């Protein structure tokens, strides 16, 4: 099954990944310079507004990654030919998503400390994000369970689809729970932030730049997963062949 889809490459880089990589460097360089130097400080939030140029794009990528994981898992489960390519995309996307989710929570906490005066508020969005992080850490743990590659793919695809059921329930219960309690005291987290044109453009550039980082990482990661699966498979095949040769010689 796996050997049929054996790749013709020995590294994970291609012409396409190099183009994406160069574009990523250009856009991210602009975001860093514009975010730190060109854009003004916010009237209310001061210099802490610059955290937004990392926080908002990383949150966007984190949620996008988990949507990609769910869609790829659904394709693996429901497609007639259970292609392991979908499983690898799902796994790679979840790994990248967890990384960006951690960045989102850390930058959000730093911003919260400066704006609300506290690292953490039991805000529904924050709480749901934290639960999403733990859920996908569990998903990654399931991917590392013993068993064949096909078992890994089936189990993790089911867990990813169950997470799609779970997250709305968690979010709704936390929203309902918080509606009975006090809200953020210094600045309402749902409050609109009015931005000037350059700030908005830098934020948009950040979203584009982080999306390119996401695409670049997914392309490389799913290929390293394929190479790893092939290495495991060839090791197993070699061991079986060695045992067969032993039995023939005996």
């Amino acid at each position, binding site marked *: 099954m796996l050997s049929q889809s054996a790749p013709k490459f020995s590294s994970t880089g291609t012409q396409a990944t190099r183009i994406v990589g160069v574009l990523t460097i250009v856009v991210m360089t602009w975001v860093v310079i514009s975010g730190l130097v060109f854009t003004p400080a916010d009237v209310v939030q001061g210099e802490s507004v610059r955290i937004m140029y990392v926080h908002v794009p990383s949150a966007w990528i984190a949620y996008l990654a988990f949507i990609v994981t769910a869609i790829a898992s659904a394709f693996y489960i429901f497609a007639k030919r259970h292609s392991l390519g979908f499983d690898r995309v799902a796994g790679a996307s979840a790994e990248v998503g967890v990384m960006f989710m951690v960045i989102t929570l850390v930058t959000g906490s730093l911003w919260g400390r400066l704006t609300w005066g506290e690292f953490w508020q039991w805000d529904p969005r924050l709480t749901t994000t934290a639960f999403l992080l733990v859920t996908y*850490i569990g998903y990654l743990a399931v991917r590392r*369970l013993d068993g064949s590659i096909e078992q890994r793919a089936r189990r993790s695809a089911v867990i990813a689809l*169950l997470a799609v059921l779970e997250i709305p329930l968690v979010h709704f219960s936390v929203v*309902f*729970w918080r509606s009975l309690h006090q809200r953020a005291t210094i600045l309402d987290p749902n409050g609109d932030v009015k931005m000037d044109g350059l700030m908005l453009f830098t934020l948009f550039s950040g979203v584009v730049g982080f999306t390119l980082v996401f695409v670049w990482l997914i392309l490389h990661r799913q290929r390293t997963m394929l190479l790893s699966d092939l290495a495991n498979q060839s090791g197993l095949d070699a061991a079986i062949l060695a045992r067969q040769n032993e039995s023939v010689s005996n």
Partner: protein
Amino acid sequence: MKKTVKKTGRSRVASAVFIKDLRIEARSRVVTNQVLPFAGLIMVMFAFALDNDDVLQRVAGGLIWLATIFSLFIIVQRSFAIDTSDSALDSLRVAGIDLSAVFLGKSIALSLQLIALDVVLIAAAFLLYQVQVSVIGLVLLVTCVICATTGLGFVGTLYGGLTAGTNGRETLLPLLLLPVVAPVLIAATRATEAAFGSGGAAISEGWAWVGLLAIFAAVFGVGGSLAFGPLIDE
């Protein structure tokens, strides 16, 4: 006609698995001899840690459901340890029977054990934490326990099946289950607090949370029936 035969087969398998799980428990008495004392100890330890009658009355609902969820891990792991030790789960799988029926039978058996556990925990809350409940509050409490334990039974069986027979299942199960059961913990705690009248909570507030528990049970009942087969399939 064929569909009717299949349905009968499914319910027969579900009831056979249900009776088998309860019979194992009746003979081994693990829930009564080990899990119940463990849950009771949790209630006592919470009293030591919080050391304030007013606080204990206020948080009694949450403590009951935390003790229930901690006990859930033990019951689920015990149930699947028996099923995997002699490859009983594999035998059920290769027998060609409907695995959603196995899921249903195991879930209901687990829910019933959790209901028995909650009866004891609620009694312990009356004795240790001095909580009080009215007749209308009791109706809310009973409905809450039935809905919450049904949902916990479904997710416990689903994730227990996934981790059955794997290395590190003792640590993986809580990691997978705790985020999933968070809505049950929030909703069941609020409904129980409403039933007890803790912190001035009105009983009418509790019914909305029971609705959420019912939705949770329905979602994971359907989702679990579909997912259990692929999860335990080798």
